[in-house]
């Protein structure tokens, strides 16, 4: 029963993919109605199964493996298609299927009337299948199917509007940049296999202790390369902002709530290895901290509503990596969950804004929308408050826990990076809110008439997500208070590692913790107030500041020219090398082959002679066979063929000669 239900979780969306995919390929045999019902229905079923599995796991937190079948094998390697159910998997399952379900429902409204409606849902469900394999896999290879599968779906969905050049380019870029990470991940898998002789998590983590620190370090770094690619951390972050070319629900599901968090999940899953490599862990933290701040600064000046949110996502993922880096694995997952709620909410409500404005995404052409689309405004406000760290909302709890943990464990530099990023976050989110919803309307005239609140099918998911964004943080504190909430208790068996003395630090007293909490809160308020000052009290200030700090402004407006630098450093040189190889290849051919050709003309004449005198002479059996073959060829096309047939026969002539030679040698020995 347990095995069956676990297996069904990815199978439901898979069936929907098959049905909808075939429907598209066979020319739309059924309507959009049926297509979307299949799509969200299958995800709902997966969600219900996930809830059931969670119920089972509450009683038995120890990991359980479900083997579907033996995938590939030979000698000492066996790779099963199998699933691992433990508390971490359960949490991820609920996030993926739960948020996924809401976004599917929302999409029914958002994508209404689109030409590629069924195709869209087929891709979305394929994404669900991949993501479920990713979080459920019991070994690295199943994880890797999901890992690359979500990359593929991301590619397909970014390129959903495939006749837009920018979308097509963004799709390719996303896949290729992800592949760089995947290559690192592959090496990590090989390293793991070389060290443990198996790829199953449970066996590996049980024996992780026997790893020497150099091996642990190299595995951890290779895994990190993978995680950095998938979770859009520095230096592989460039694909995520471009990924906003996809439809907005895609940005919400894939590029905010689920896929991009895969890197965080993977690091937490492998914490047993990271714990053995403190240096690697530190690198994780630094990557996270720097990315958090780096992306947050870019977010300060972007003017595309989705791009602000995209950089915000990169930044928030940086927080999660920072958490991993300081050993706060549970906090990382906690933030992953709350982020899934409020970032999905923000993206979907941004989608609702875009929907209302007939596709407008530039915040400079928005403003004063709060009265026109009040429901969207309300939920967007909730989302902003949650991400900015308004007290007692979900983001406040999780972000505070990360920063607190960093500080308490002595990572002051990382704390400072995170705190600064938190300030920027509060600022740019408030800025986004003010510029979009308040002040005077700058909406284009022809768009203004069509502004309308979204249909209920879109609003209800928003309300659910808003509710979760408000209260979602409570799972982290109820019933045991800070760091003893249900969430922590539940995940404890997964992240507990031998020899990690994390608990001792808690004894430093709660006073520090409360002070830190207050500081984080103040930082958030400061960020909000700065935005309030710039965009409400002194609206002329931003332009003045912009002019005064022209250099810095241009730098971050152009995203530090990272894309341009990569183009110059890798893409263009790669193509240039390819071109010069291509030239060499073609030039090489011609010179050599023309020379050989001339020689052949001679040898052709020679072999014709040999053919006449040696083979047709009927010297031996081989010769006779050749004779026959030559006659057959003649009949085929007598005149033209003869010359070339002679060349072909030349090989056999050599054979005959060699055999003769060899017989002679044999006789002489």
């Amino acid at each position, binding site marked *: 029963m347990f095995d069956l239900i676990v297996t069904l979780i990815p199978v439901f969306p898979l069936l929907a993919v098959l049905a909808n995919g075939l429907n598209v*390929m066979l020319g739309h045999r059924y309507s959009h109605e049926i297509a979307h019902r299949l799509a969200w229905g299958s995800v709902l079923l997966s969600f219900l199964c996930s809830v059931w599995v969670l119920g089972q796991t509450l009683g038995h937190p120890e990991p359980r493996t479900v083997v579907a*079948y033996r*995938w*590939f*094998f*030979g*000698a*000492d*390697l066996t790779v099963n298609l199998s699933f691992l159910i433990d508390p971490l998997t359960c949490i991820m399952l609920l996030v993926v299927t739960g948020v996924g379900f809401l976004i599917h429902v929302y999409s029914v409204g958002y994508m209404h009337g689109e030409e590629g409606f069924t195709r869209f849902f087929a891709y979305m469900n394929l994404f669900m299948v991949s993501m479920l394999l990713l979080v459920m896999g019991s070994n690295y*290879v199943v994880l890797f*199917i999901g*890992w*690359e*599968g979500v990359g593929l779906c991301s*590619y397909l969905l970014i*390129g959903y509007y*495939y*006749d*837009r*050049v920018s979308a*097509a*380019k963004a*799709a*390719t870029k996303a*896949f*290729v940049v992800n*592949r760089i990470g995947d*290559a*690192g991940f*592959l*090496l990590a898998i*090989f390293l793991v*296999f*070389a060290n443990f002789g198996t790829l199953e998590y449970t066996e590996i983590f049980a024996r992780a202790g026997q790893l020497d620190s150099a091996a642990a370090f190299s595995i951890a770094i290779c895994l990190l390369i993978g995680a950095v690619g998938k979770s859009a951390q520095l230096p592989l972050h460039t694909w995520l902002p471009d990924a906003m070319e996809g439809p907005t629900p895609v940005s919400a599901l894939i590029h905010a709530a689920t896929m991009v968090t895969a890197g965080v999940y993977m690091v937490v899953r492998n914490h047993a290895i990271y714990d053995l490599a403190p240096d690697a862990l530190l690198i994780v933290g630094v990557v996270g901290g720097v990315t958090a701040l780096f992306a947050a600064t870019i977010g300060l000046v972007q003017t595309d509503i989705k791009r602000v949110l995209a950089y915000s996502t990169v930044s928030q993922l940086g927080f999660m990596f920072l958490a991993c880096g300081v050993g706060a694995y549970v906090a990382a997952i906690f933030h992953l969950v709350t982020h899934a709620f409020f970032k999905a909410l923000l993206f979907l409500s941004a989608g609702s804004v875009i929907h209302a404005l007939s596709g407008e995404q530039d915040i400079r052409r928005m403003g004063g929308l709060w009265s026109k689309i009040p429901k969207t405004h309300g939920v967007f406000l909730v989302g902003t408050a949650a991400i900015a760290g308004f007290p007692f909302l979900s983001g406040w709890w999780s972000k505070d826990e990360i920063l607190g943990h960093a500080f308490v464990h002595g990572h002051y530099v990382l704390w400072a990076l995170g705190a600064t990023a938190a300030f920027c976050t509060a600022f740019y989110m408030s800025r986004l809110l003010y510029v979009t919803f308040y002040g005077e309307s700058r909406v284009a005239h022809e768009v203004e008439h069509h502004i309308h609140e979204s249909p209920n099918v879109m609003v209800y998911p928003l309300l659910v997500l808003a509710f979760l964004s408000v209260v979602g943080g409570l799972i982290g504190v109820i019933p045991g208070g800070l760091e003893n909430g249900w969430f922590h208790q539940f995940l404890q068996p997964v992240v507990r590692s031998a020899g990690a003395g994390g608990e001792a630090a808690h004894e430093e007293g709660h006073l520090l913790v409360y002070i830190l909490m207050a500081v984080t809160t103040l930082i958030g308020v400061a960020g909000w107030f700065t935005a309030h000052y710039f965009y409400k009290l002194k609206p002329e200030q931003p332009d003045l500041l912009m002019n005064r700090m022209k250099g810095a402004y241009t730098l971050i407006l152009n995203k530090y020219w990272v894309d341009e630098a990569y183009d110059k450093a890798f893409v263009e040189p*790669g*193509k240039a*090398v*390819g071109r010069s*190889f291509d030239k060499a*290849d073609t030039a090489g*051919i011609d010179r050599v*082959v023309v020379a*050989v*050709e001339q020689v*052949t003309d001679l040898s052709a004449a020679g072999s014709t002679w040999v053919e006449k005198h040696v083979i047709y002479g009927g010297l031996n*059996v081989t010769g006779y066979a050749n004779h026959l*073959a030559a006659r057959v*060829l003649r*009949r085929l*096309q007598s005149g033209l063929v003869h010359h070339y047939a002679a*060349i*072909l026969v*030349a*090989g056999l002539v*050599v*054979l005959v000669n060699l055999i003769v030679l*060899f017989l002679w040698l*044999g*006789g002489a*020995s």
Partner: protein
Amino acid sequence: MILNEVAALQQIGFPILTILTFLPIVGAVVLWLFQEDEDLIRKSALAVAGLELFISVLLMWEFIPNSAQIQFAERAAWIPAIGVGYHLGVDGINVLFIPLTAFLTFLIMVYSWDTERNLLKPYLMALLGLEGTMVGVFASLDLILFFFFWELMLVPSYFLIKLWGTGPNRQYAALKYVLYTLTGSVLMLVGIVLLNLNYHAAALASRTEPLYSFDFIDLLNVPVPPEKQALIFFLMFFGFAFKAPVFPFHTWLPTALVEGPIVMSVILAGVKLGTFGFIRFTIPLLPEASKDWLWLMAGLGLMAIIYGALIALVQTDFRRLLAYSSISHLGFVMLGLFALNFQGLQGSLLQMINLGFSTAGLFFLVGFLYQRTGSAELSAYGGLARHVPLLATFMLVLGLASVGLPGTNGFVGEFLILLGAFRAHWALAAVGVLGVILGAAYFLWYYERAFFGPVTHEPKRPLYDLRPREWGIAVALCVMVLWIGLYPAPFLNMINGSVQALADRVQQGSVMQAVDNYTRPPQARQDAPLPVGKHP
């Protein structure tokens, strides 16, 4: 696990491999002699290819999995005086190549149904002849017989490129192809003869019978002294490397693939004869030399991976792109082969089959495009997904398989190859994974420019999407790609036994007879007289 034989008559009751080899050839002769009506010719050719496919599936069906023994063996004397015999048989190494050849030929017949009108009869005869000789190459266990089919195969290949090629330089391409292969095979032949001489010396010394042999099994029994192995290794290497083609002997391939007919591109890209030669003969016969030259061979593989991929990146002609991607893929195969461990060999063997579905499949799809636009140049495309969505979808599926996306067959092959390479030396895999990145880059970049984006060229005639015959071909290929990608167990079971035996053989070496269980012990000849006049 002794490499004994199961005779075909014992196992299935009829000489199945002889039938598989000669059925298409006989079919070609029958076409030639008896038929004039074009429609009937088409149908007969298709029927022969279909029957061949059916028998080859039967071969897989009756094959005993997880076994290293030679099955369906047939032996007959041919030229006993010099030790040439007629010896056919399959084991895990070659069993999958025969159905693959039959499968591709069958699809080619379907493809050619309405696309080839010029000189139809000789065209179909050449295709059938090619099929028969290729099956002969795969099934032969006597090196001269092998060589015979190897050379004979050139005849239909040559005419297919020359007479039915699509490019203006097809004459040149055909000649170049033949010259390369011939040059290589002459060297290979010398290597084969040296193997025989070595056998002969050992046979004389140990008074074993027969005195001369080109038989693979006999040659396996006689270790080649390590100092001679390098010479023979390189002689044979040239034969197989020119054919494969292995970088830097690859330059005939792009020309042949671009100038030749689509069907020949499918064969050249899909039926990996050259690398088959390595795993069938070179590695088992010359394990010490293979190990000595591991770094050179794996290095050539790595260079091919990177070199081919970088050139593919900048191509604007899709067939040229696929040609260079083939070179890159062959680099992977070489890398896995000369990792010389179980996963490397297994992955390479599987990958050779995989490429017969993915790369060869892409050539079919290029053929479909060619039918519609008359060009494989990027400048003629742009936004094709709007016009031909189904074609675009299949192109993506097969392309991702060739890129090695998990869930497709390419992943299983590449994963095993890279794992094998990693276990040989981590650096091999560290460089090899670059090919994984570049592969995605060149394929998707081309796909983006050809299929995505706005429609840049309004076609003169409206482009029609796939028609039923094309549907059938594309679906058949995708089914195989996903089958091997998701559930490769039946195929792995077939090859694993022999791969294990080969890996053991490489590990233990050919010299250590006592522990070598890859071969049966040579039969000592008790009281036969010495050959007259050979000894003082």
